[in-house]
């Protein structure tokens, strides 16, 4: 089921609101709403879930206008950041809740609960209470509870937020696999761009309540519609006022490109970061792989020239339609140097 937001606005005072959001979440996609804290990500999710009603605009699930539909009638699976377990119920009762509310026959509920617990690998935990579960287990219980009602759409608010690094990584892979298996349109909120890029097949970048850009992760990474998106979605550095990716900078002999001096070299495993001082007095940095560095090593204090790689990545273009799909910005801002082939 696709989700369509049309000029949706919800104001709360200073932050957390959303402003004139128009976007389409494709059916069957795994979409991440990404942005810094206070950008209105959770609000957008709650608007879709019906836990918040918009001040203006329309929300459609497929062709069904749900803007003012009570959440109980939306048939949406919502997983909360704190998992919101029903603490007085066992895991099985938690999962059964939505079905009991729907007055399904007892045998059907039992079967469905067993199926869901199997799916989230919590079959052995059926008679435990939430307080006896770890964070990751509670997250999976919340997922089973949301999925039990066969929702039209699955909404996940910061699903990896409160977990430690290893569990996060596991759960990330697992959610991706789960999505591949059940294909329910899934929207998740995160502030971690790596997580979003890894898990999602479609991104919506929010900033101060507005959609900065939406599209596929590679699309947004390679063709950021604004400096904000460029900086938010990956490493960035600024040369002559133009923000670009530090791995798109190439070292050339002195005399070519922009003159610079190497000030620092740090090795982070496979990655090398070269800090440079530009003639203008600005600092910037170059990101290289170990192999690139070894093929053309530099030393601290060395004078070099830098130029922009014949980019697969266009620098920041003008702000375009929020889906960003129509735009493959020509290098309007490629004022740095003429691209040269290495």
């Amino acid at each position, binding site marked *: 089921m696709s989700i369509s937001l049309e000029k949706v606005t919800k104001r709360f005072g200073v932050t957390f609101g959303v402003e004139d959001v128009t976007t389409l979440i494709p059916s069957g996609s795994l979409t991440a709403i990404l942005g810094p804290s206070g950008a209105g990500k959770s609000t957008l999710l709650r608007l879709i*879930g*019906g*836990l918040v009603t918009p001040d203006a605009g329309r929300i459609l699930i497929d062709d069904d206008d749900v803007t003012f539909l*009570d*959440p*109980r*009638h*939306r*048939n*949406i*699976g*919502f997983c*909360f*950041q*704190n998992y*919101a*377990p*029903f*603490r*007085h119920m066992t895991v099985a009762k938690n999962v059964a*809740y*939505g079905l009991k*509310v*729907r007055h399904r026959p007892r045998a059907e509920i039992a079967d469905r609960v067993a199926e869901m617990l199997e799916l989230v690998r919590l079959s052995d935990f059926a008679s435990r*209470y939430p*307080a*006896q579960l770890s964070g990751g287990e509670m997250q999976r219980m*919340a997922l089973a*509870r*949301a999925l039990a*009602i066969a929702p039209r759409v699955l909404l996940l608010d910061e699903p990896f937020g409160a977990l430690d690094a290893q569990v996060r990584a596991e759960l990330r892979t697992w959610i991706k696999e789960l999505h591949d298996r059940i294909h329910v349109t899934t929207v998740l909120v995160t502030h971690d761009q790596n997580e979003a890029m890894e898990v999602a097949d479609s991104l919506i970048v929010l900033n101060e309540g507005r959609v900065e850009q939406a599209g596929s992760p590679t699309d947004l990474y390679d063709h950021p519609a604004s400096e904000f998106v460029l900086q938010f979605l990956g490493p960035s550095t600024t040369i002559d006022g133009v923000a670009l990716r530090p791995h798109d900078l190439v070292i050339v002999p002195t005399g070519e490109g922009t003159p610079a001096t190497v000030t620092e070299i740090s090795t982070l495993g496979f990655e090398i970061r070269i800090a440079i001082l530009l003639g203008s007095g600005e600092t910037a940095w170059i990101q290289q792989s170990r192999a690139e560095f070894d093929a053309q090593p530099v030393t601290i204090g060395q004078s070099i020239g830098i130029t922009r790689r014949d980019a697969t990545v266009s620098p920041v273009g003008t702000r375009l339609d929020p889906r960003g799909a129509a735009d493959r910005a020509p290098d309007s801002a490629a004022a740095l140097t003429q691209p040269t082939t290495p």
Partner: protein
Amino acid sequence: MGGALGVASGSALLMSYLSLIVLIPIAAIAARGLGVTVHTNGWGMAVWHWSASSDFSGFWSNVTQSDSAHAIWLSLWLSLSVAAVNAVFGVVIAMVLVRDSFAGKRLLEGVIDLPFALPTIVAGVVFVYLYGGSSPVHVNLIGTWMGLLVALLFVTLPFSVRAVQPVLESLDSNAEDASRSLGAGGFRTFASVVLPSLLPAILTGFGLAFARAVGEFGSITLIAGGQQTTTTASNLIFNLFAGQNYTRAAAVSVALLVLSLLLLASIGVTSSRIQRRLSL
């Protein structure tokens, strides 16, 4: 424990204080009720002495005399009813205070604590004026159990509200949102999600209100109207004491004490059992 004072001296202090304030008086009344006299010998040691009447049957006949039994029974069922009624209204009032915002909410907060602040005998006078023979609303509850009930509802209300309110405030509103998104309506969500989370607090409020009602004297002694049928245990104890019937007064006290303790203990056990499941 074990902070500023250290565990050993801290617990010694606690025990001394508890003994002085709580345990010794209770032991004394228990001894008196059972007909045991205690005095100290020349060495400062306690000497227990069973008097001629100090057998359990003496105690038993003291508390099962018809007026004693009636008074104890009246105190118990009135207190249980009052605690139950206020458990319901306590939740309702706490819900309104926590969830709604309206003009005069601060004022209402204060009004709920009024029974805490008011000397109970003043409340008693107020009720006699309001529901007495010259009642301005033409309701005469003097000498009726209804009169006692109204007075007890008044003095126990703050316990029921204040026990539930902080728990309701700290309740995870996401759980309610989860319930709604799973298809439950407002009533279903309240009954299946909110109420079970409040249960330990409701039981605590119930216990506090019950304990308060059992011990209440000031606010009901006037409206009871000196009738035998509306003499509660606390009233009877006062009457017996005034008539210098000290042993029976103590016996009734002990019976009331034991029954109340049993009830409070079972409430406590139930409440902590639920609480453990909720938070572990």
